[in-house]
């Protein structure tokens, strides 16, 4: 029963990705193409998401337990270190190359199974390589 909450939240997150346009790699690249014919839509996706989540996160930060009494597990790392910068750079390059980030990659499996599987398989391999060799 407890697993219905993460299942439902995954669904809701996926619906948001589908409605927002984030699952269309061409639209994502159109947003990243500020030097060309720029589609600003995805700035509004981030704006809409942060607009809704900002106050709940401030509320959560002030609590030790969640509304359901679970422990609040917020990240504790604060350092802006080399790993963060190198990792985010590589992620950004990969994101630009195909226009797909992890969430939309998983949703792509249900939209275009062949290309979705190619991307997700490679992404899982990349995650595995990181965990094995670059922790």
């Amino acid at each position, binding site marked *: 029963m407890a697993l219905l909450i993460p*299942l439902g939240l995954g669904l809701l*997150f996926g619906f948001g990705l589908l*409605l927002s346009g984030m699952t269309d790699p061409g639209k994502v690249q159109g947003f990243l193409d500020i030097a060309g014919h720029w589609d600003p*839509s995805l700035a509004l*996706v981030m704006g809409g998401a*942060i607009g809704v989540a900002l106050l709940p996160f401030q509320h959560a930060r002030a609590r030790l337990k969640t509304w*359901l009494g679970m422990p609040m597990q917020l990240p504790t790392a604060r350092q802006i270190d080399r790993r963060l910068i190198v990792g985010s750079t590589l*992620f950004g390059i990969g994101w630009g190359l195909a226009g797909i980030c992890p969430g939309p990659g998983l949703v792509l499996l249900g939209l275009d199974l062949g290309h979705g599987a190619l*991307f997700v398989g490679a992404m899982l391999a990349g995650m595995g390589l990181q965990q094995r060799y670059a922790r």
Partner: protein
Amino acid sequence: MSIAWEHFTPYSALGGGALIGLAAALMVLLEGRIAGISGILGGLLQRPLPPDARWRMAFIAGLLLAPLLYGTVFHLPAIHLSASPLLIIVAGLLVGFGSRLGSGCTSGHGVCGLSRLSPRSLAATLVFMVGGMLTVGLLRHGLGN
């Protein structure tokens, strides 16, 4: 630069963004966790599996089921994928490796981290945004074209 008004979809972008934000907000308020896709997925590759593996699988299952359910009510959005299969593989490797090395992606740093007002996530978000913009710029306009 010119603005592609003909592709601009402000209402679905804001609405979809709001749903993403709602999912992230409920995730932290109910479960006390960050809705970061790369982190949740990456944990499932660890051996031994973490104790919350079933929780992670349930969330990922929701994401995977989303297009199937969405498609029963709405038109599934069109996708325009210009990358070749080889480029998709390279992109996937970089996205997987980079998001785990940098401890997050668009969801964990971009949505949740910025909503937490985390300077670390702001730095990560700026870096991957600029990285993505430079990459698309080079792909589309680089080397003289």
